């Protein structure tokens, strides 16, 4: 039942992606708006499956890697809708909805029963840790999307070929600024996520640090973002190099899930 509902949600999600992308690229406002509404519907459907799953298991649905991906995908879509409806940043429609759909799809395909130790996962501390980390990575996904669009736009400006790309995307400056702003939200959340993860690890495994993908990759990502922030604040670096670092950092943050999927 939950899977059927999720399948419906994903179909609506994919429909929204197609409509929004075509609408943005061809400057057809009604199509883009229809796409955004379909995505909003998908968001509601996905939220209800998450709630239903949580109620059925009477647990916070962040016990396994795949569950984490489901929630993360939903979170990314949440941020996209906020950007679209509140800030009128429309071009993100080309990146964020597909990214969130991929996360949810991966979550569905990799779904596994929670491990026995997961009884601990009902603890408040764990819920806090996972929610913070998910929100942080979702914000970083927005930063990633803006950085990717920045590079695409940059390339279009340099190659001078696609006028369509040039006019469909926001200005170079706006993409740079939005990517940075998302980072300003994502980085503190990621920091907090890592710190609470350590505390949780200390409580459960009696060790502050474990050498595993789940632990190493977030820290590498954190280091990349820290370097990026330092470059921006201390040296005033912006543009292409900043975008590449943001994309690299997000890639490391995603690799965390390698450590969560058995």
């Amino acid at each position, binding site marked *: 039942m939950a899977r059927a509902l999720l399948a419906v949600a994903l179909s609506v999600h994919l429909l929204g992606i197609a409509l929004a992308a075509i609408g943005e690229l061809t*400057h*057809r406002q009604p199509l883009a708006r229809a796409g955004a509404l379909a995505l909003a519907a998908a968001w509601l459907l996905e939220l209800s499956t998450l709630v239903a799953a949580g109620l059925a298991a009477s647990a916070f649905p962040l016990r396994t890697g795949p569950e984490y991906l489901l929630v993360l995908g939903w979170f990314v879509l949440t941020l996209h809708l906020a950007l679209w409806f509140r800030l009128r940043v429309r071009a993100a429609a080309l990146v964020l909805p597909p990214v969130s759909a991929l996360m949810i799809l991966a979550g569905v395909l990799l779904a596994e029963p929670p491990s026995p130790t997961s009884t601990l996962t009902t603890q408040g501390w764990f819920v806090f840790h996972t929610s913070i980390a998910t929100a942080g990575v979702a914000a970083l996904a927005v930063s990633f999307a803006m950085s990717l669009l920045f590079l695409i*736009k940059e390339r279009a*400006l*340099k190659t*001078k070929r696609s*006028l*369509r790309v*040039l*006019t469909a*995307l926001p*200005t*170079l*400056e*706006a993409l740079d*600024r939005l990517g940075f702003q998302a980072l300003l939200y994502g980085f503190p959340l990621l920091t907090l996520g890592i710190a609470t993860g350590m505390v949780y690890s200390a409580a459960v495994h009696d060790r502050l640090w474990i050498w595993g993908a789940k632990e190493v990759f977030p820290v590498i990502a954190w280091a990349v973002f820290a370097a990026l922030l330092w470059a921006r604040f201390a*040296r*005033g*670096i*912006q*543009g*292409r*190099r*900043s975008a590449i670092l943001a994309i690299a950092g997000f890639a490391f943050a995603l690799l965390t899930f390698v450590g969560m999927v058995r």
Partner: protein
Amino acid sequence: MLTLVGMNHNSAPLPLRERACFAEEDLPAVLSRLLAATGASEAMILATCNRVEILARAPEGVTPAEAIKAFLARERGIEPPTLDSHLYVREGLHAARHLFAVACGLDSMILGEPQILGQVKRAYAIARENGATGPVLDRLLQHGIAAAKRVRTTTGISRHAVSIAYAAATLARTIFDDLSGRSALLIGAGKMTQLAARHLVSQGVSDLKVTNRTYSRAVPLAESLGGAAIAWDAFAAELSRVDIVLTGTAAAHPVVTKALVRDAVRARRGRPLFIVDIAVPRDVEPAVGELDGVYLYDVDDLQGVVVAAMDERRRAAEEAWRMLDVEVVAFDRWRQTVDLGPTIAALSERLHHMGEDELERFARRLASLTPEQRAIVRDLARSLIQKVLHTPIVALKSAAARGEASARAALYREIFGLDEPRPDAEGAGSGPTHAISGGKDE
């Protein structure tokens, strides 16, 4: 009947268009002379630098095209044969379609240019204020202007830049959030550079430095653009500061070298620098465009943007034509419903006359009735006729909504003999009676 007689940049050379053009302040008087001379009931004149179009609506059966041509020849003092070979005539829905296309910019020299819609609105306002328009032109123009707005916003026919100077400003707007308050450096004092600079200033660029090898030439240009002149050897320092650089010197060799810009780029730390090189031979070394954060566009690149924009507009134009055809059909439906008026009136009149005739024929046999009873018989006849009329009229109107009004109206006119002179009441009663009884048998 709608009739449009006109000339545009395709049909007539500029000298002739100049001679045929009306001054705006003359239009009220010209319009009233036009209505008087051509027998048209409504008229409008659109006169711009690229076109003169006279749109008129004449009563059924009058085709005023020749009268309009003669009027134009007389008014503007042009020999009719010369004028005739450069005029085009569109009638009926073709006239409506042409007007819609003009309003959309589909008939303009620069496809999709936006000024023409304003000119159409103005021409319509003048005609309306002077009482030259009536129900049909009002509807046509209001419909056409609304349709043109819709077509422009949905197809993007006016979206892309189609001149080099405009293309430079458009590109700048894809890089920077907002051009207001931006800084620009102008190197050289060529005509094209000035034009591009003016575009940038009109978009809000406020901090403008102008340099030229001959300082004295930079000063008046800087003044006219609201900027400041700087010495030639000071421009390198500006490269690390300004957002936009425009070059257009007559130098034989590049004046902005890669080494020069590389130093500036290092200081800019990724802040975008947009360089527009309008000079031929080029002022900026092509390798400058490889530097991080530098976007270099030369004349060919800008031309490429213009060509791409024209392609986009042409593609948009195809869609615009499709949309227009739908709008023309919608206008036609409305016009057909209006055209039904005379048919419906004639039909009703014919049947009521039949009723009167029959009542008269029976007058002697009804003489024995009281006045009250006679009134009842009269009401009965009238009510019967109304009932008989009701269904055919409803059917006619719904046929008009499907776009079949004229065929259906012709059928009605034939069945009820509406185009024949009304037979005199005397001795000709059998015809109409037959028509009615035929209707009842069905």
